[in-house]
């Protein structure tokens, strides 16, 4: 007696395709637009390399954020974490590059673990808790730097990380590709990754299937923490310095890129591939705005509008409501 028939199912599929590929379409369109407007500046090797390096840091953070969001949470503290993870390696760098790197990653790990504990095990509201952590980490960053700009040594091996090349590809980009690939494998091929999708998609079903949702969430925060730490190492190495406020706005860019790439605020949906596209798209747009000479407030306005549009898209069109 079924009268639903094929029509509505085909409609649903079409809608899905459009939603998932709209971003790709916009990206291609934009690149063509850029080519038409400012061929010389945009496509110069120098500019492209610049874009790639900027994208690398945001992209590495976005890989981690994708995991956290798929699990159904958010992390607003990564901006201050990035600052901290820039300051720490620069300050420790004279004592040995390896030491500095390892220490920074440990810092990222610990912060992620704390977030994961408060949110995963204690079930705190992820938005407010990470918002609070933002303040705490910022305070710590200011504390250890005394509020001062930290200078690195442009001659040391450390500086090589951000500015060096391997086979003509900037090292940050290689690291980004490696981490993106790793994240891709984790999300699509491991038990942890699958558990993350299930937890974010339907936490009751996850629990009923024997998945320890608390631990899964905690692990996702730890991964994000470690990734942001790596991002901090790269960025501080790129500019041989670290300002205690260097990371402000980072979480904003990362979340925009991730949502743009199709990951839902409600959890359960998202791919590294999509995040990659979102990161590139955001990078291209940011870069073009600078090249065109758009005043800073307008740049922020555009980025804010993009975030709101992406979230609206997610909330309304996909019918997903993200309730706090």
């Amino acid at each position, binding site marked *: 007696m079924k009268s639903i028939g094929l029509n509505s199912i085909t409609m649903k599929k079409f809608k899905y395709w459009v939603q998932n590929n709209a971003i790709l379409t916009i990206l291609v369109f934009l690149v063509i637009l850029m080519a038409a407007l400012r061929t010389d500046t945009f496509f110069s090797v120098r500019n492209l390399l610049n874009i790639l390096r900027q994208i690398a840091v945001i992209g590495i953070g976005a890989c981690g954020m994708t995991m956290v969001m798929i699990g159904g949470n958010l992390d*607003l503290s990564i901006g201050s974490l990035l600052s901290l993870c820039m300051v720490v390696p620069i300050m420790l760098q004279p004592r040995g590059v390896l030491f500095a790197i390892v220490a920074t990653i440990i810092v990222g790990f610990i912060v992620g673990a704390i977030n994961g504990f*408060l949110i995963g095990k*204690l*079930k*705190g*509201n992820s*938005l*407010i*808790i990470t*918002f*609070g*952590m*933002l*303040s*705490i*980490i*910022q*305070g*710590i960053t*200011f*504390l250890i730097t005394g*509020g001062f700009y930290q200078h690195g040594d442009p001659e040391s091996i450390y500086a090589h990380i951000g500015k060096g090349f391997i086979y003509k590809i900037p090292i940050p980009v290689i690291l980004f590709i490696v981490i993106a690939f790793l994240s891709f494998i984790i999300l699509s091929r491991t038990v942890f990754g699958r558990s993350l999708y299930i937890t974010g998609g339907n936490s009751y079903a996850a629990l009923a299937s024997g998945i320890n949702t608390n631990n899964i969430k905690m692990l996702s925060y730890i991964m994000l923490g470690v990734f942001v730490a790596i991002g901090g190492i790269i960025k501080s190495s790129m500019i041989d310095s670290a300002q205690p406020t260097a990371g402000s*706005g980072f979480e*904003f860019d990362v979340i925009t890129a991730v949502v743009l790439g199709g990951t839902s*605020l409600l959890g359960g949906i998202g791919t590294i591939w999509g995040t990659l596209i979102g990161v590139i798209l955001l990078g291209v747009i940011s870069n073009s705005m600078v090249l065109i000479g758009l*005043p*800073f*407030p307008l*740049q*922020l*306005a555009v*980025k*804010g509008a993009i*975030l*709101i549009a992406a*979230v*609206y898209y997610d*909330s*309304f069109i996909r019918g997903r*409501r*993200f*309730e*706090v």
Partner: protein
Amino acid sequence: MKSSKNKFLSLIIENRIIFIFVIIVIIVSMIEPRFLHITNLINIINQASINGIMALSMTILLICGYFDLSIGAILSFVGMLAIGWQSTLGTINAVLLAIVIGTLIGLVNGLLVTYGKINSFIVTLGTLTLFKGLSLSLNNSRPISGSNENFMLLGGGMIGPIPIPAIIFVIFILIFLFIMKWTNFGRNAYAIRGSEISAKLSGVRINLYKTSYFVLSGFCASISGVILASRLNTGSPNFGDDIPLLVIAAVVLGGTSLSGGMGTIRGSIFGILVIWVINNSLDLLNVKSYYQMIIRGVIVIVVVLLDLLYENVRQKERYKLNES
């Protein structure tokens, strides 16, 4: 039904913030006698007044289950506009126009949350970033100094022994107490979060009310912004940085649960007093501002976790009561 002993106990628990306030004041005045100096007390009252106005509107929003993170950015932006336009528009016009703009920002927030159905945290985070950026660009990230000495009367003047900001705060308190008890506008906030379906079925115009609560929030932030700018005769893009976090913490501390549906004006007032007494005592004890940042974040997290704990206890209590 509850016995009178139980009623007394629950009355104390409900108003626990008042006891916390008294205890903290006692402790602080014992540790640091300078606390009780008139100048210091006036200082606290001024700060509490400025932030308290925003806490009042935040209380309504939290009762409804919404957040407004943009109040700090609105405060800064409006303050800068009020000062910056003094010479061109005249002080009074500048102030009025600035307040109107701040209120309109609240309207935008409200529309996006209510009709766009986007999570309030995200919307106001976007607005926050946007207007923080705009504030920074107004004078190259630098504060603007005011030219009109008379303007300082608003924030710095006194009527008798009482500072004007405090008088304004008291007026707002009276208005809010009135709204929350005697008007449909205020009472519906409880209904909307408590049982939205009940409200809808009864014909309450939910969308209208939700939007207006955000408009009110924008308005209060604007007033606070003007008072602060007048007190210091300066408008700065950084004034609002810690405010949303602290105001939310104060309101939650005062008994408005994050789970929504309940909360009182008097609770929020004492919550603000507690937070700013703590702030002040940290200053008196010469705690470095970076430690303060950390402490602030810790306070927020602790307040949130305590609220969760309290919610758990409340649920258990309800089960017990139902047995009678």
